[in-house]
């Protein structure tokens, strides 16, 4: 709680309202994105954490400029900096999630012959290409919108994430393919041995 006997001027009041606006939407979004990023990637989102820390640091300076130094223009500058850090936390996080999914898909994708040989239920070549192309378009759209419109950029990254997440879930795991191929190989060997023994007797 800030205890101050100073009368708040209309200009100061305006700045305080702007602070509340920033804390209302961009901060909430940045915090949610930070948590989502960690849950989706299983890694600590230190880029988001640094940006949130820096945003908080700007808020500290802002309050000192506003109430201690009585310098509204400097306070406004700090507010803009704080907002920029929050946007960075949101968009870097959103982009990072899409990159992690792309990396997982890249590692999970196997030559089609393996899917056929192991009889796994895998998406077709066309489905994979369409999903990746569509996600790439969304990511590029998000990158382009980063400096212009953070909400639009975040929306595009989220759409790309949804596409990639769904594709990643549909791709069979390497273990499944491996076990199926081992079972298939064992069956073929057993059949060959059985046939050989049948011919011998």
């Amino acid at each position, binding site marked *: 709680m*800030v*205890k101050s006997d100073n009368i708040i001027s209309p200009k100061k009041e305006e700045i305080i309202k702007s602070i509340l606006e920033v804390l209302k939407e961009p901060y909430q979004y940045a915090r949610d994105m930070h948590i989502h990023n*960690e849950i989706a990637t*299983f*890694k600590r989102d230190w880029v988001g954490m640094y940006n949130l820390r820096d945003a908080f640091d700007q808020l500290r300076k802002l309050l000192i400029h506003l109430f201690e*130094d009585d310098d509204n223009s400097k306070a406004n500058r700090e507010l803009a900096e704080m907002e920029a850090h929050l946007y960075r936390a949101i968009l870097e996080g959103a982009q990072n999630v899409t990159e992690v999914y*792309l*990396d997982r898909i890249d590692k999970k994708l196997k030559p089609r012959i393996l899917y056929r040989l192991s009889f796994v239920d895998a998406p077709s070549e066309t489905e994979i290409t369409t999903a990746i192309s569509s996600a790439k378009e969304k990511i590029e759209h998000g990158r382009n919108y980063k400096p212009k419109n953070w909400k639009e950029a975040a929306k595009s990254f989220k759409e790309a994430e949804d596409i990639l997440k769904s594709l990643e879930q549909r791709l069979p795991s390497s273990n499944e393919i491996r076990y199926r191929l081992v079972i298939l190989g064992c069956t073929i060997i057993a059949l060959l041995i059985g046939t050989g023994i049948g011919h011998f007797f």
Partner: protein
Amino acid sequence: MAVHQMDEMDIHEIEERLKIEVGEVRQPLGSAGGYLISPTYGVENEKEREERKKRIERRFFSEKSRW
């Protein structure tokens, strides 16, 4: 007051100057789910992150990419 002076200030001094009363420390509401499982998360260093970024650029966004 200059910014570098503020950077050098002790947190207690800032609290005193801003006349802030620090109450009980609370966990942010709504984050509980995320923080509960956070000890299981790994830590990715900057080099690994940069390498992944480059790998993604090369595999998916370069002109040679098959996608």
